[in-house]
């Protein structure tokens, strides 16, 4: 395997306002020009991971890691100046809420060009128009002089992506880039992101709560639960033959067009569980005594890494008990 573009080892994050860790020692790698997705529900630490890698949590959380290597350099030791340069030129960032991410009272172009020196701006402006057209904004030359509030949510998010691409990044960090948008707009934006990725040779870290979104563009997927990685592997393998009960839960709980109607969707209840065992023991339908006493380690099974004591039985057990565990409350 070639050297990874980004390699994270034992990342731990604890918010200053909280006692528990939001991210509990996770490791993963992103190869150049590939897309890695982090999937999980809110509170699983997926967005925190993305923000920690971009070093955007400086004032609000303690971040620890053995290393965060980006292009062979450890970003943990980078100075403020180096970080700014990194964010401007090597890493692009797109956030979830298009409205909250913009300053509504400044023009689109002005905001996106702020990060660059005055002398560079005219040239960058041309480039920005080019990128805006590329991400599907018609009349980009006019939109660049409009205020964000004049644009729809989808347009704001497109402009944000154009801005993130402006410095010719090699890595794009996208934190739930489509969750706040309509299904139809989501589909278009996802398609766009994967096109751009191929064209620009861009690597991507995509954070989402929706496996359906992820399945469309990510090569590899990391599934997080409660600050830990529970499963990791190639996306299609992960979806088609999940070995962790939580991944199964995520896939089955999605309302899909080919499900029987008016039948309860797949969910499972929350119980109390001991803090020593598996993080998912509090919701897992397959829990056995060892799950509460011993934490399962991530281990390579076939193509995927799984942290589950019963990984070999998951497929069989969950299919057999399909009907009986579908009750909610």
């Amino acid at each position: 395997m070639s050297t990874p573009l980004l390699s994270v080892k034992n990342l731990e994050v604890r918010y200053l306002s909280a006692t528990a860790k939001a991210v509990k020692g996770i490791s993963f790698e992103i190869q150049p020009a590939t897309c890695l997705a982090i999937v999980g529900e809110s509170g699983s630490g997926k967005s925190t991971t993305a923000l920690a890698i971009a070093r955007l949590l400086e004032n609000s959380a303690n971040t620890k890691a053995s290393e965060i290597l980006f292009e062979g350099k450890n970003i943990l030791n980078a100075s403020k100046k180096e970080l700014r340069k990194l964010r401007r030129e090597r890493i692009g960032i797109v956030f979830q809420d298009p409205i909250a991410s913009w300053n509504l009272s400044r023009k689109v172009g002005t905001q996106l060009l702020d990060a660059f020196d005055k002398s560079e701006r005219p040239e960058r402006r041309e480039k920005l128009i080019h990128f805006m057209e590329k991400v599907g904004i018609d009349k980009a030359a006019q939109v660049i002089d409009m205020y964000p509030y004049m644009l729809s949510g989808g347009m704001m998010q497109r402009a944000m992506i154009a801005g993130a691409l402006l410095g010719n990044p090699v890595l794009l960090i996208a934190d739930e880039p489509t969750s706040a948008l309509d299904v139809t707009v989501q589909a278009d934006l996802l398609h766009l992101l994967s096109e751009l990725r191929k064209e620009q040779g861009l690597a991507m870290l995509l954070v989402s709560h929706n496996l359906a979104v992820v399945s469309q563009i990510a090569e590899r997927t990391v599934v997080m639960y409660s600050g830990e990685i529970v499963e990791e592997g190639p996306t299609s393998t992960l979806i088609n033959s999940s070995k962790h009960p939580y991944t199964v839960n995520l896939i089955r709980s999605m309302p899909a067009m080919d499900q029987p109607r008016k039948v309860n969707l797949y969910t499972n209840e929350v119980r109390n569980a001991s803090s020593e065992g598996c993080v998912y023991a509090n919701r897992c339908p397959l829990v056995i005594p060892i799950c509460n006493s011993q934490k399962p380690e991530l281990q390579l099974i076939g193509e995927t890494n799984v942290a589950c004591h019963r990984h070999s039985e998951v497929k069989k057990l969950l299919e057999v008990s399909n009907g009986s565990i579908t009750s909610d409350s």
Partner: protein
Amino acid sequence: MIRLRAKISSSRGQSTNISHKVGTWSFSAFVILLLTVIFFPGLFAPYDPLELDVINRLQAPSKAHLFGTDEGGRDIFSRVLYGTKDSVGASMVIVLMASGTGTILGAIAGWFGGRIDFYLMRMVDVFLSFPYLVLAMALAASLGRDMRSAILALILVWWPSYARMVRGQVLSIKERLFIRAARTVGASNFQILFWHIIPHTYRTVGVRASMDVGYVLISLTGLSFLGLGAQNPSPEWGLMISNARSYVLASWWYSVFPGIAILLVVSLFIYAADRFSGAER
């Protein structure tokens, strides 16, 4: 460039929280102390504030008279303590009345809008278009030269700024989703106004009010100093300073101690308000 902060600042550290709590506690202790002095000045004051003792007139501070005595031989320490009621107590009443009236009228204007809003706000404009102290003086003078008219004048001068502030807030609160939710379960205008809207203005009104206690105190003592408020022999602080004018050079303590009392109370209220509004952000 883009507001990354919004995402991050939501989980600010604990440290601000703790110092905010300490601040709140010490401010509450201070207010409780003030209220005790207002209601039971006798507990602390060694002398009757009105009793004349001409032999001991204009004594410098000593063990017997901590703050010295005035031209009638009255103990200034006791007079300052008794004066808390007329100065600070009255200021609190003024702020309470003004903020209450202002909040209700402002909320009504903001909620109903239309003609009610128009007339109420034009009235507010009229009040706010005069320099407030000049207006208060004119009102106090025309209502009669006593404490009651000074208080009434200051309430009249102070409520409009609350009305305007609350109206602005209500305009944004009334668009919020929980107000719509309340309407769908059948809540009346009155219920929405008093159960949902006004409670959401408490915090900002509270901050503003605690600051205003300081400013009102300055204005009230100012009016008394000019002879438009408290009348002799009341131990109101402004009036005491006014009386002390003739003795400033020979008996410094007579004007200085009531002055320090005003300074202390005003700065504490304003400081507290500042801290509250800071913690809110």
